[in-house]
């Protein structure tokens, strides 16, 4: 009844259906299809995916590889540690995209020592910016609901006026990478972390049920996605696999407050000890091995630390490194 009005008549003044299809729908579909194919190819993991996952720096004139600072307030501990390591400029080049990876896994408050101390994160962010980084991202793939973790931990607030990007994990940004580990073969890693120039791992030292102690190597679980719960079935191999693939630039172990019991979650203030210590180093196994001393535990008894040494991720003998210990 309304055929003529609907514009099948090409001389009708308006755009006819045929014209619309030919001039708009076909090209748009072609563009989308082409883009879809391109998009599908981009960042395709395949074998390693074209990411430079080793974020270490080398060839510096530095003389110290690890620092332990005791008896200070968080920001001061960080400053001293980096100072002795040769300054943040040793690690950060001008214009770098830097990912700060604190532990924000739980919606606990700073005094409950389940997450990294916000002042530690803040000072590191400040130093990274001062060293000339182009973009600073604070990120953790949290265990609990993300917004409550970022807020309750104090970390969101601590960095909010520094101009850093607070990144909440998005499903679409996890890419499968072929890491060829002993236990993990192909696993989803967060794209922003894979693409960053430098990654600074900022764990907090705490007791953990299965892993026994959660420090640097355990904290790196925050850059992966997928069925992380299944890692528990072989934690000793899974953790070194992650850190062997994505090697952090620097590990800064926050031990201002440590969680002695009921980790990794914590909650009770009775389980927290204020130790006012910080360790920073380029060897993730060594930093974790040092962390064991805070709990009076022999690092050789911790499975993933032993395995870490076996696969040449680092060494348990932290005292044998070029190390400086400072007491404020």
């Amino acid at each position, binding site marked *: 009844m309304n055929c003529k009005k609907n514009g099948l008549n090409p001389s009708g003044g308006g755009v006819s259906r045929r014209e619309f299809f030919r001039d708009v729908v076909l090209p748009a579909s072609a563009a989308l299809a082409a*883009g879809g194919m391109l*998009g599908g190819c*981009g960042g395709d993991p395949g074998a390693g995916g074209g990411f430079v996952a080793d974020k270490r720096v080398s060839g510096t004139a530095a003389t110290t590889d690890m620092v332990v600072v005791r008896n200070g307030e968080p920001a001061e501990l960080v400053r001293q540690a980096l100072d002795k390591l040769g300054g943040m400029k040793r690690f950060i080049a001008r214009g770098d995209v830097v990912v700060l990876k604190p532990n924000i896994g739980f919606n606990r408050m700073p005094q409950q020592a389940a997450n990294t101390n916000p002042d530690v994160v803040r000072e590191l962010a400040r130093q990274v910016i001062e060293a000339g980084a182009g973009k600073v991202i604070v990120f953790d793939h949290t265990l609990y609901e993300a*917004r409550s973790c970022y807020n309750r931990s104090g970390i969101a607030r601590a960095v909010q006026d520094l101009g850093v990007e607070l990144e909440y994990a998005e499903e679409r940004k996890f890419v499968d990478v072929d890491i060829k580990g002993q236990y993990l073969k192909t696993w989803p890693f967060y794209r922003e972390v894979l693409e960053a120039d430098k990654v600074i791992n900022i764990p907090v030292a705490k007791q953990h049920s299965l892993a026994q102690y959660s420090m640097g190597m355990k904290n790196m679980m925050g850059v992966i996605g997928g069925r992380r719960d299944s890692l*528990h*079935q072989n934690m000793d191999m899974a953790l070194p696999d992650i850190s062997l693939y994505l090697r952090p630039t620097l590990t800064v172990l926050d031990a201002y407050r440590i969680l002695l019991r009921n980790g990794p979650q914590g909650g*009770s203030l009775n*389980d927290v000890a204020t130790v006012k210590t910080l360790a920073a180093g380029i060897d993730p196994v060594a930093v974790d091995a040092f962390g064991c001393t805070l709990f009076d535990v022999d690092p050789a008894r911790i499975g993933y630390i032993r395995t870490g040494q076996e696969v040449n991720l680092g060494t348990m003998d932290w005292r044998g490194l070029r190390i400086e210990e400072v007491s404020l």
Partner: protein
Amino acid sequence: MRKLFRLARLRRLSQTLFLVLFLVLFAMTTLPVDTADIMEEAYTLQAPVAWFFHLDPLLALSHFLATRDFLLDFLWVIPVVLLAVLLNRTFCGWVCPLGTIHHLFSRGRKSLNRKLRRERWKWRPTRNVKYVVLFVVLAAAVLGANWVGWLDPFSFLTRSLAVVVHPALGTTLDGLVRLLDGVGLTPVSDFLLDALRGTVTPFQSRFFVHAFLIGGLLFLVLWLNRVETRFWCRYLCPLGALLGTCAVRAPLVLEKDDEKCTRCKLCLKHCQGGDQPIAGENWIPSECHFCYNCVDVCPENALAFRFRRRPAAVGEREYMPDVDRRVVLGGLVGGLFLAPLQSIGAENLEKGEAAYKISNRLIRPPGAVAEPEFLRKCVKCGACMKACPTNALHPTSWEAGIGGMWTPMLVPKVGYCDDRCTLCGQVCPTEAIREVTLDEKLGLHGREPIKIGLAYVDRNRCLPWAQGVPCIVCEEVCPTVKGEKAIKLIPDTVRTPDGRMVDVRKPTIDQEFCIGCGICENKCPVKDSSAIIVTCVGETRSRYNRISVSSV
């Protein structure tokens, strides 16, 4: 004439404002993300997100009838009732956000013409169905069966938005983002996510079990607007019926000039309430929404609203709605008979030691009152489901009995109860979920924590127990309440299926500390059917649903 012209515009403005306000409050029914609040461990919602519910005289009345309790928040209904007495269903035409949505879905020139042709403007006795609904609901409420939530407009709208529309928006955005990423327009998708995530769309994709029926009802009701303008308002809405009964002595009347009328039927075409504004037909005051479209659109200026004492001008008969005694009595008696039906098979009404539940998975939100009172108070609005940051609360289907359909329950497999969150109690408009403080919830200062259930380990599925494979994710995520975890690990040496002896740690539940939050079931790696399960026994709100006499 020009004055009334402005009234129709004023009405549109009013509808827009109230709808926007409703949607804004809805969007704010969520985790507050102001980072300035981190020193407070408890989240506090600043916005009065339940305000619309407190305007609703139907909710107020049924709440009072069912609980014999008057909630001070419901004092807000007084201006609404006054408005109804003076200007009868102006609320429907000017305020009700669901009414506005129906109004929008009724539009369209072709649709309006079709409805005019099919005489959908005529009053039919079927319009009385809404009075039947009203009286059934009220009668049932007297007997303690609160069914108002299914068809109350605010509950209906909030529930439909929370359980169907809001998650669907999230899915749509996710699809759009994927498409944009695929064509390389990632900055655009990033921008969209920043703008919309957490407000217009859920922060994290969410879904609700049993949403299908709620969604189906929503689509049906919206589609019915194509059959007749504002179908819901005319035939179904019990609040509209309640406000309509206040119309019997309303002083605002529609005056028709029969001589000027040319029977062009423009007034009928645009009439919202279906009250027959055309000259020559009886005007039905209890159906009129006072949208002023008829006056606005009449080319002959044959219509006008005046304040007048009844009866109206010469030539017009006084018309009362056909809500005679039969309808009222029928509704009341029907309600009284139907109400006990909700008890058939619903053994969750507690009767001393005989109390047992249809479903041991009926885990209620923390702060929920005891079940009989809960069913009397809950209006099934879904605000708690919207507010819950972990997507833990879902509408029931049969778990609470038929009368409890669409009340909230915790589904640990989808979401757990964040031990430091108290949002559900803050948003509940009728205190079916009490607003508890964090101290109360956690059992600080010598109290007992609020327990909503108890976990148990299925030893046939749990990896350390059944397979000799290390795991203990449940113990790790178990929150520390009163200083200890509810899951304790027993070290043991077990034989694996291939004959080796391995050291494992086996999780067991310490009844004293388990609060039933469900995070263990949520995070258990045995994904299809969790090896650690939470059931509702041991819930603090029930004297009877316990295992032992003392704490649990």
